[in-house]
């Protein structure tokens, strides 16, 4: 096999503003052959993105490739002039970024951006390139391949945009493709379509690829070989099968151990005895402008328990949390906190109601004011809710820090001096400062590395047992929810399709949508992707897209079991099944999918 890319003894350095250069990547060597996929895995900060960019001879602003050789198609591109090296990008090697939504220029039409690189590098004229692009769109199963290029990026969905970015990377017919976490921001159901598209294209064109990810289950599907990285150094390299099933180094073993088992394999706790609900919301309907995001959602969170809310992005999970917290206005429905009806609007709620219900957001970074010290961030709610001042306040800040397993000395720090996991713990401590009965956790672990996220989940569990606080735990990560929640609510297009104790929700019978979600969670075995992508359910699901405000069952256009004439016109009945399970579906209980 001829090597397309060979990297020898790469050293990349970066410098913080005003600081000296420090190494980010140390002595990394790798090679990728034609038609081969090499996966770079590791936690954030392991240098995997930096290495993948260095394969294009590129370093982000503030970084430099200090040492090493990068051989692409038989020549050392680091020895070329910057201009000649720049000319290779978008010609011999192309790049697929993590977020297509951020990587498409919002002011330009998609088609123009897709053919921009080959057009610039003189691979053809605009009309032939556009025709080639349309063929690519068709190959990637994009809806309306003829016209999608005319649209602006905000007019198409995230999954489609990600596939369009693949088309953008393929349009120049590269020899090497760099894929930097290309499916991390996607839903599991969309991830399957995109992964499949990448695999097909790499196979058809014989392109070499570097695939950067932290998701081992995804790696199992796409990679031929794996390179494990930690703090910019190589830990272990080998064929996919060996790394996944027979890791040699301790660090690789730790990574494998942090992988959560698939949701249906978790040992679920038995249902807890009925407790009075701390949050009880009835027939909530809410939206923004002309769009109705939530319709008729009812949810109960019993005291000292965890209710998981799952569903794909855009299904209304975050809106549900915001409505309960009083941040988003309600069109219909009522909210009870701790047995008392409260105003839908935050400003009209008494302080006691505000205290009882706290929220923790996904992005730990943006939720903390970078110019406030941790003592101020935690002190404000203490003053507001409990009137603590001076040393009483300072003492309590220290206690709160200890509660979330951080040293008391952190009080004098700024958020910028903390890591992502530590920041999320501060967010949690801030919610705890109010001494709440329920905390609304909106994707609190989604932005964290697997190992760090596992630590936060353990902390949440410990706090629940110690303080008796309840959580509404919103996540798109089914495995985490399955291991953590007592009860689960499945949302689709703003409606509850299934709810009940986790044990019942994650075992048959399923709502067809829950079944789709569960079967879409990638599994660690190789070949899983091919199997799942060809099922009738997956094909039916990828044929349609989420419709908000459907007349009948919102899932009917993506459901393999839909009853024509009924599902798309009539709102499905809620079926009460054994074990406290509720499923909103037209299918009779004994026709619901079982496996």
């Amino acid at each position, binding site marked *: 096999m001829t090597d397309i890319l060979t990297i020898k003894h790469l050293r990349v350095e970066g410098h913080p503003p005003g600081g000296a250069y420090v190494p980010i990547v140390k002595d990394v060597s790798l090679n990728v052959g034609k038609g081969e996929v090499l996966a770079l895995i590791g936690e954030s900060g392991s240098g995997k993105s930096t290495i993948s960019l260095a394969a294009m001879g*590129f370093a982000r602003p503030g970084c430099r490739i200090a040492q090493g050789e990068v051989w692409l198609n038989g020549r050392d591109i680091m020895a070329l002039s910057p201009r000649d090296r720049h000319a290779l990008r978008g010609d011999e090697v192309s790049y697929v970024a993590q977020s297509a939504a*951020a*990587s498409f*220029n919002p*002011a330009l039409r998609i088609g123009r951006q897709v053919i921009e690189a080959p057009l610039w590098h003189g691979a053809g004229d605009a009309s032939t390139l556009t025709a080639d692009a349309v063929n690519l769109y068709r190959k990637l199963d994009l809806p309306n391949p003829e016209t999608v290029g005319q*649209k602006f990026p905000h007019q198409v969905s995230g999954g489609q945009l990600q596939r369009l970015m693949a088309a953008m990377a393929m349009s120049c017919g590269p020899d090497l493709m760099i894929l930097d976490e290309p499916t991390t921001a996607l839903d599991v159901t969309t991830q399957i379509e995109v992964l499949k598209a990448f695999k097909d294209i790499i196979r058809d064109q014989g392109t070499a690829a570097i695939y950067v990810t932290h998701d081992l289950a995804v790696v199992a599907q796409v990679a031929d070989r794996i390179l494990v990285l930690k703090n910019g150094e190589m830990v272990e390299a080998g064929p996919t099968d060996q790394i996944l099933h027979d890791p040699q180094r301790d660090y690789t073993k730790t990574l494998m151990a942090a992988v959560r088992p698939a949701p249906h394999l978790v040992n679920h706790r038995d249902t807890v005895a009925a407790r009075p609900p701390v949050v009880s919301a009835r027939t909530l309907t809410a939206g923004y402008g002309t769009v109705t995001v939530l319709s008729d959602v009812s949810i109960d969170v019993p005291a000292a328990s965890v209710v998981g809310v799952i569903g794909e992005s*855009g299904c209304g999970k975050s809106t549900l949390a915001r409505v309960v917290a009083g941040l988003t206005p309600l069109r219909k429905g009522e909210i009870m906190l701790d047995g008392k009806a409260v105003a839908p609007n935050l400003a009209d709620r008494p302080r006691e109601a505000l205290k009882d219900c706290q929220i923790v957001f996904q992005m730990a970074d943006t939720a903390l004011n970078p110019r406030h010290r941790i003592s101020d961030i935690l002190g404000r709610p203490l003053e507001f809710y409990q009137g603590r001042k001076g040393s009483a306040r300072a003492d309590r800040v220290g206690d709160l820090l200890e509660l979330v397993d951080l040293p008391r000395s952190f009080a004098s720090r700024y958020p910028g001096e903390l890591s992502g996991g530590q920041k999320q713990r501060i967010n949690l401590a801030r919610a705890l400062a109010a001494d709440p009965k329920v905390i609304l956790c909106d994707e609190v672990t989604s932005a964290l590395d697997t190992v760090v996220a596992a630590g936060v989940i353990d902390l949440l569990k410990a706090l629940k047992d110690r303080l008796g606080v309840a959580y509404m735990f919103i996540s798109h990560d089914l495995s985490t929810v399955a291991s953590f929640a007592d009860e689960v609510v499945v949302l689709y297009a703003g409606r509850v399709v299934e709810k009940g104790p986790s044990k019942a929700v994650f075992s048959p019978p399923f709502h067809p949508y829950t079944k789709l979600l569960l079967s879409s969670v990638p599994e660690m075995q190789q070949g899983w992707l091919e199997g799942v992508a060809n099922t009738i359910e997956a094909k039916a699901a990828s044929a349609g897209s989420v419709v908000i405000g459907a007349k009948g069952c919102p899932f009917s256009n993506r459901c393999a079991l839909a009853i024509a004439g009924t599902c798309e016109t009539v709102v499905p009945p809620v079926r009460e099944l054994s074990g406290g399970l509720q499923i909103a579906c037209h299918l009779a209980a004994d026709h619901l999918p079982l496996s």
Partner: protein
Amino acid sequence: MPEPQEIHTPAITKITPFWLQWLFVEYRPSNEAVPSLGRRNRVLRIIATRLAQGLLTLLLASAIIFAATEILPGDVAEAILGQSRTEEALATLREEMGLNRSAIVRYFDWLGGMVQGDLGTSLATKRPVADMIVSRMWNTLRLALLAAAISVPLSLALGLWSAMRAGGRVDKTLAMTTLAIIAVPEFFVGLILMKIFAVELRWLSATANTRPYYDFWENFRALALPVATLSFAVVAHMMRMTRSSVINIFTSPYMEMAALKGLPKRRLVLRHALPNALSPILTVIALNLSYMVSGVIIVETVFGVPGLTRLLVDGVSLRDIPLIQACAMIFGSVYILLNLLADILSIMANPRLRYPK
């Protein structure tokens, strides 16, 4: 990833206190489902809202201008009679001019006149204010238009050039020069230019008086210095804003993506960064253009241009209140109109608003 809810914030809300923001609010989550509108309608509706807001702002400006002239010590009657006034004469004159009526009544009287094009009669010259203004307007407008025609393209070009070479020698030189120009007061720049080009070299004229029979070169000689002085200050400001808006966009992932396509810097800046930087650039251009019309007092004074601001300065020294009010209203209207124009242009430049999902 949850799609962030689209909220179009007009540039002005960034500097408006929150209690005034209701004036500019474009979109709010509401309890009512709003009937959906077509693409064209949506943009039209936003523009109509903005126009209405502009009118409302103009109305507020008129109230403030009227109130400000009300607060000045002494009234029109005192101003007319001057030192030689007696109490009786004052009372008679006030009666004649209707100054005994309440301020509210007089405000609406004045406003009504304005709307119908009656700007009142000058106290000093006894001529209609409208006539006086029209005869002076062209001089100011010509200065401003010429300066705009030179400074807008120049500052855009320099700003983009500077952004392309960010951190390089060109960028640093331009940054230093523009900072120096902003720091030096305009009258000083004007005087230096005058000293060099009019007094020493005798190439250009030190006064900006033009005559109808002047040919092109005579006009050029007369206007070159004031136009240059006026351009200097605004070019520096607009260039710096263009540079920083474009550089701001450089850090976004789509710029990295475009760079990794192997495109040259020039194409990155012009095709990828500029369209996204248009909104802040348009705003700063509007601010500077309105400054040119209303803030040219110094340039007009230094070069003896018989323009609108000179009229205003004369009005103030003679306490010619109707004239002051009319001039102030004109400057206010220009300011509001240009900002409105910038807002509408940046709405039209935003594909998210032009092409909803």
